[in-house]
């Protein structure tokens, strides 16, 4: 399907529809929050009943997610021991010529650099050399912004010189600033680099269907088995040229050097992806991921005017192929930095801005919905499922922590005399507390799993401090509101009001 995956350049009905759909998520979140607030004072009995119905729903969903988090974690642990190269060879034999041979497969790795210094991206490149997969079958493209300081470009050249011999080739592509139709976003830089890579591949007669492209954040350090695991999945997947491959993102690079609240938030984000991985039917690409280069070229590369290029590329492909596109989860990790800064206060600001940028993924909603209206071949049920998940996910992100932490308790806090003399006034908080106590099963499981998932703390760290990390989870009610729900609501409100977000490069500190 030919569909312009952008909010720009729209006319007439499409423009009005886009604007209406941009308003919808923010308006819904605000209606829920303000509505519940008003109801808490105006009809406290009704509010208390709704809160109980919601709390129970949340509890069951939490337990449901905890169950799949455990299963997913066990799978991740099991897959750590897997010899992916052996499995890839086996897969090669089984496909019996229907899939490319291992030595025919090439990987393109695109690393966009906006202003990051060499210390941020070099460990990731060094890691590529140490991959189980032969690095000579990897084309590394360092995509540097033209507007980056001169020092950054010089460093990129130096890194290129140092590592070039290890790879099929190592390109440094400088993305010109201010190309027509582009916004100052990572997707524009990655797209420009991918086009350069396409020209390079074409020049050497390498067919795109045998190429897998991975777009990593500058700070991404992939697991040594990443590319063998990716190759195996690429070979084993019958619809490999219509598939994205999603690893599990973890934030371990500087995990022990950041404040506890930031650590907890990002471990939570990893867990969310672990749970999502158990549901490939509705899985959407997030952060660093890989896909068929052929698909990337056919769909017209990453959006060049959107901040959330990581998820947008999935939706773009899904619409382009009218539903015939999927994401395959890979139980292998890619490690990134926790957004940190030199001071605690600046870290709070950084984390807030990073979460707001993640939540800006809501910008996909109006475009995807417009696409769904036009896509006749996508089954209605699939459209409904995806639309609901996309919409509900963002609404839940912005509203649930408020409902659970603050608004749900307001009917009891500010009860008028009529309400305080009712049975509901006494039973509702008791039920809510029981629900919260039951939810501690989920929290305890999460705490235990986080201790298992995190890398070993630096040598010499006192054991008491290590035990103390367990208690960092106590700040979750606060951080879930201030550094998750508020940024999400901020993002939705901006979209609702048409105050579009500028790309902001997350500060990384090592």
């Amino acid at each position, binding site marked *: 399907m030919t569909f312009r995956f952008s909010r720009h350049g729209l006319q007439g009905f499409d423009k009005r529809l886009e604007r209406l759909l941009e308003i919808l998520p923010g308006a819904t979140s605000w209606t829920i929050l303000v509505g519940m607030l008003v109801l808490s004072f105006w009809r406290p009995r009704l509010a208390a009943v709704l809160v109980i119905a919601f709390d129970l*729903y949340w509890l069951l969903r939490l337990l*449901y997610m905890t169950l*799949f988090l455990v299963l997913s974690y066990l799978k991740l642990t099991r897959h750590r021991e897997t010899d992916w190269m052996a499995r890839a060879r086996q897969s090669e034999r089984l496909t019996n010529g229907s899939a490319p041979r291992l030595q025919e497969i090439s990987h393109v790795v695109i690393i966009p650099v906006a202003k990051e210094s060499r210390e941020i991206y070099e460990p990731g490149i060094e890691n590529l050399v140490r991959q189980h997969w032969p690095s000579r079958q990897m084309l590394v493209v360092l995509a540097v912004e033209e507007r980056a300081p001169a020092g950054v470009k010089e460093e990129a050249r130096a890194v290129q010189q140092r590592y070039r011999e290890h790879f099929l080739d190592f390109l440094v592509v400088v993305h010109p600033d201010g190309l027509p139709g582009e916004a100052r976003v990572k997707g524009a830089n990655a797209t420009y680099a991918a086009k350069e890579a396409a020209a390079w591949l074409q020049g050497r007669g390498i067919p795109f269907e045998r190429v897998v492209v991975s777009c990593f954040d500058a700070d991404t350090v992939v697991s040594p088995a990443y590319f063998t695991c990716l190759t195996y999945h690429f070979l084993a997947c019958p619809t490999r040229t219509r598939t994205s491959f999603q690893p599990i993102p973890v934030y371990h690079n500087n995990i022990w050097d950041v404040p506890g609240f930031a650590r907890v938030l990002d471990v939570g984000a990893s867990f969310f992806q672990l749970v999502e991985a158990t549901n490939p039917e509705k899985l959407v690409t997030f952060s660093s991921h890989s896909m068929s280069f052929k698909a990337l070229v056919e769909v017209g590369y990453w959006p060049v005017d959107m901040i959330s290029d990581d998820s947008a590329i999935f939706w773009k492909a899904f619409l382009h192929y009218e539903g015939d596109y999927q994401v395959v989860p890979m139980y292998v990790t890619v490690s990134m930095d926790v957004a940190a800064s030199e001071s605690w206060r600046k870290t709070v600001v950084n984390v807030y801005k990073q979460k707001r940028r993640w939540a800006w993924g809501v910008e996909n909603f109006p475009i995807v919905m417009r696409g769904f209206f036009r896509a006749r071949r996508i089954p209605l049920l699939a459209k409904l499922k995806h639309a609901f998940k996309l919409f509900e996910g963002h609404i839940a992100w912005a509203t649930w922590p408020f409902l659970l932490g603050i608004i749900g308790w307001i009917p009891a806090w500010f009860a008028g005399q009529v309400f305080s003399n009712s*049975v*509901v006034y*006494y*039973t509702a908080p*008791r*039920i809510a507390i029981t629900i919260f106590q039951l939810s501690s099963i989920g929290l305890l499981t999460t705490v235990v799993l986080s201790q298992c998932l995190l890398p070993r703390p630096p040598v010499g760290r006192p054991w008491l401090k290590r035990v103390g990390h367990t208690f960092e989870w106590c700040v979750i009610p606060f951080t879930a509101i201030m550094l998750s729900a508020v940024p999400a609501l901020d993002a939705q409100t901006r979209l609702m009001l048409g105050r579009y977000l500028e790309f902001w490069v997350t500060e990384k500190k090592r």
Partner: protein
Amino acid sequence: MPWLRKSIFFVFLAVYLITCPILILYVLGYVMRPGTAQGMMRTGLISLATAPPGASIYVGGRRYLRRTPAVLDGLAPGEYGLKVILKHYHPWVRTVQVEGEKATVLEKIVLAPTHPAARVLVPEPIKELTPVPETRFVVLSTGPKIEDLVVYDRDAAEPRPLIPLDSPFRGSRVLSSVVVNESPFLLLRLRAEEGEAYLSVSLKSGEARQADLLTLFPGKPQEVTWEPRRPYQLFSVQDGSVHRVDLEARAVSPSIAERVRGFGIHDQRLYVLTEDGLLQRRDPDGGRIDTLFQDPLPGGGLARASGFFRIIVLADDLIVVLGERGELWVSRFPDRWIDTGVRGVEFDPRGERLLIWRKDRVGVLDCAGQDPNPLWMAEGGNDIRQAFWVYEASHVLFQDGPAIFLLEREPAASPAPTSLLLRVRAGSAVAYAEEVGGLYYLDRESQALSFLEVIPRP
């Protein structure tokens, strides 16, 4: 895993669809009762809390498993005999009405001890007790002179002389004293060798400042008062004029308001009732006049009333005018007016209620509701002199002659009997401190300063 995910999803969905309605019905007070017409019954609950906690609960003669505080839920509508028992305390027995979907709230039950154990704080015989409301002090008098005055500080838990041993005022006779709510200061009118003098004494430090009021007002003022936060700025009313005396600057501002029949001060504003019947608010220097009401007393009652009026400002929109003969007017619609006999008022800001008392009765005037008439809670008294809100205004404690009584503000169903707590020294005042839930009084026999815990603590 997708099939597993789907299967478990439907299991969780089924659990939600079954559990949620049951839970909501339970929250609303509906419980399953097989055998009833709809299989469901509307229930109510009783929420019980006692001071002290841990009492056994009997409902209709059957003991309830939990002890206070407890919520007895799932009760069918109807009357329930309720008994709360704790060793060493009198049983608390009531008949309580339970309605469907409603909560009967009994969370301020005070259990009276079977043998009230008073503590002696100052064993020496004391002649008079002067409460300083809403402070941690009481002033005790063992004789007529200033050195006979002793301050009892609740925090220090010991008495100390009001003025230092080397004070030049020693030997002076105390003619009268004035205290102001929330202000740890005492204004004394003394007769010294040189003549009469006024003395403002800090109850915290014992520091004394002489107020040179006599040069201005040779007679006894009708009213002397000050704001709790500005104890050295006194306002006095005499012969219909308000004067201001700044003790720190030793400055006097005479006649800042004239032709005054009533006076009060609140939040650095003067409130005056003029002879023309106007209730006015003025700046502290007497300037900038706002007229709030024109003859607030019904039917031009001010013109007929005689004597001086005390103006008590409880909130910006809630002013009480209390006359010498016990006339009471409250600035809320509909007019609340009692033409005579009110001896005192005490305000409960949370419930916007005024506790009022006359010689023979104690009642509550609801300032927020529509009923302009007081609800008399206890009648038939002989000489009710003091009354206090107790335990977050759930109870009222009052002194009738030497007897101290405690009664519930809202008896559950059947009228609660007024319980006699103790008898104190005849003619002496008492002081109730909500912070500690206890009463300071002079013992009937020994005249010692004693303390009785009215609200038992765990």
